[in-house]
């Protein structure tokens, strides 16, 4: 079970900035995520979602600001908390020549899992991997690869799970199947999940909070229901378009 106090945010981001030579990717954002919540980070291409997630993971060093995960400052002490978090991203792959079982065994050992074989067996059942557990990872379909990436992300039963477009390029059936597994995992383990997605249906179904980003800043931050009411829209896709095209909230639009 999570080792954190109920009141402490699982992820806290304070005045986070990332400035590259080519320009500003993230321009000073702040938010805190409640433990056990599922939050979406939304925004168009280049909004700063992936950079924000990479800074939370510690893969990218912030230019300014602070990231704290499970009470640990990621800049100072990330290695003390990495075994309690995990991630999935389309920007990384698992070694293709290794079989699914071999990959999961390697990562199981990296994450210090006590009974790696048993855990792989559990995940193979939960995520329906048994059929291709001994097949090279590179020979799997996109949907199968996503399931394997999810298995890797859940290997250590993370308290914090970061997902960058977890259902991108999947057919609707597989995508729905993945969402159900994520809901089940959160319900069973009380994990905090932050996901970046372009799929608004996914966000409406999974997330209790939506952080809308545009050009490196947070444009809005609320529950899906409140965003729909605020913008006077029927679905999040319309809200997304309003924000992306700078149309503002419903009251402003009326004026």
């Amino acid at each position, binding site marked *: 079970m999570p080792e954190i106090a109920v009141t402490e945010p699982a992820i806290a981001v304070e005045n986070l900035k*990332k400035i*590259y030579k080519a320009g500003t*990717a993230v321009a000073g954002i702040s938010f805190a995520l409640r433990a056990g919540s599922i939050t979406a980070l939304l925004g168009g291409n280049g909004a700063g979602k*992936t*950079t924000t997630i*990479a800074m939370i*993971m*510690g*893969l*990218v*060093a912030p230019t300014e600001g602070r990231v704290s995960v499970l009470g640990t400052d990621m800049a100072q002490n990330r*290695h*003390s*908390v*990495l*075994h309690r978090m*995990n*991630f999935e*991203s389309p*920007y*990384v*792959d*698992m*070694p*293709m*020549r*290794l*079989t699914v079982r*071999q990959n999961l*065994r*390697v*990562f*199981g*050992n*990296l*994450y*210090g899992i*006590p009974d790696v074989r048993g855990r792989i067996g559990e995940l193979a059942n939960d995520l329906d991997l048994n059929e291709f557990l001994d097949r*090279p990872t590179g020979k799997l379909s996109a949907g199968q690869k996503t399931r394997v990436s999810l298995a*890797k992300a859940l290997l*250590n039963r993370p308290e914090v799970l970061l997902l960058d477009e977890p259902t991108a390029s999947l057919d609707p059936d597989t995508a729905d199947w993945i969402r159900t597994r994520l809901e089940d995992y959160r319900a069973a383990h009380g994990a905090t999940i932050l996901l970046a997605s372009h799929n608004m249906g996914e966000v409406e179904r999974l997330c209790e909070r939506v952080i809308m980003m545009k050009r490196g800043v947070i444009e809005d931050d609320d529950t899906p229901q409140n965003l729909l009411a605020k913008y006077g829209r029927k679905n999040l896709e319309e809200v997304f378009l309003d924000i992306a095209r700078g149309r503002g909230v419903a009251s402003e639009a009326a004026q």
Partner: protein
Amino acid sequence: MTTPNPAIAFSPRRIGAMVLRYWYLMRSSWPRLLELIYWPMVQMLMWGFLQSYVTENATFFARAGGTFIGAVLLWDLLFRGQLGFSISFLEEMWARNMGNLMMSPLRPAEFVIALMAMSLVRLAIGMVPVTLVAMWFFQFNVYSLGFALAAFFLNLILTSWSVGIVVSGVVLRNGMGAEGLAWTIMFLLLPLTCVYYPVATLPYALQIVAWALPPTYVFEGMRALLIEHTFRADLMAWALVLNVVYFAGAVAAFLKLLESARRQGSLMQTGE
């Protein structure tokens, strides 16, 4: 294997996991295994036949029997040691797996130790058959060098790791555009470390450069052993001192380059 606290600073289990990862990869691909043996074998045969020819036609080389084959075997040890380290590292870049590793509890020091271990595994697979063929074809038994061989090996492998560590850091920081360094950088040392000729052959200015490089001491030591039948412990001690300095410098450079890669966002990229 034991189950350590994943948050601890150093974990043999995590190092073992990485070695296992590379072992799985090597086992799954016969071209990878063949590549380990192929070029050292070609080199050894070519220099071995050349040596056989010149020893039959020159009295000095008749006395210096084995120096060519000895040099080529030790050079391959140096070159293959670095290549074994760097290729294991590059496998992660080619597989787009670096983000997974950097986000896992694996520490940079553990990653480097795993790469060093794989460099030894790859060397053993590549070089042992070649040394056996050298015994059979040219009656050159490198193992008869005994303790001296251990001293040569230690110094050469330390140099190869230092170079491998720096190259890996540069690739991490600058992307796959720097991959070529892994294949070519060691050839800079080929003329400067006097693999096939004495240091005295070089112009004076280059002799100073040569004596700043640990492998030079090893190749001079090998010639002293094979020609004069003298083990030069002083040369090995100097090489070791230089190696310790270079290895520490290489680790510091790797950590700096890793930090720089984090600042530049290079760990999320795997392209050029």
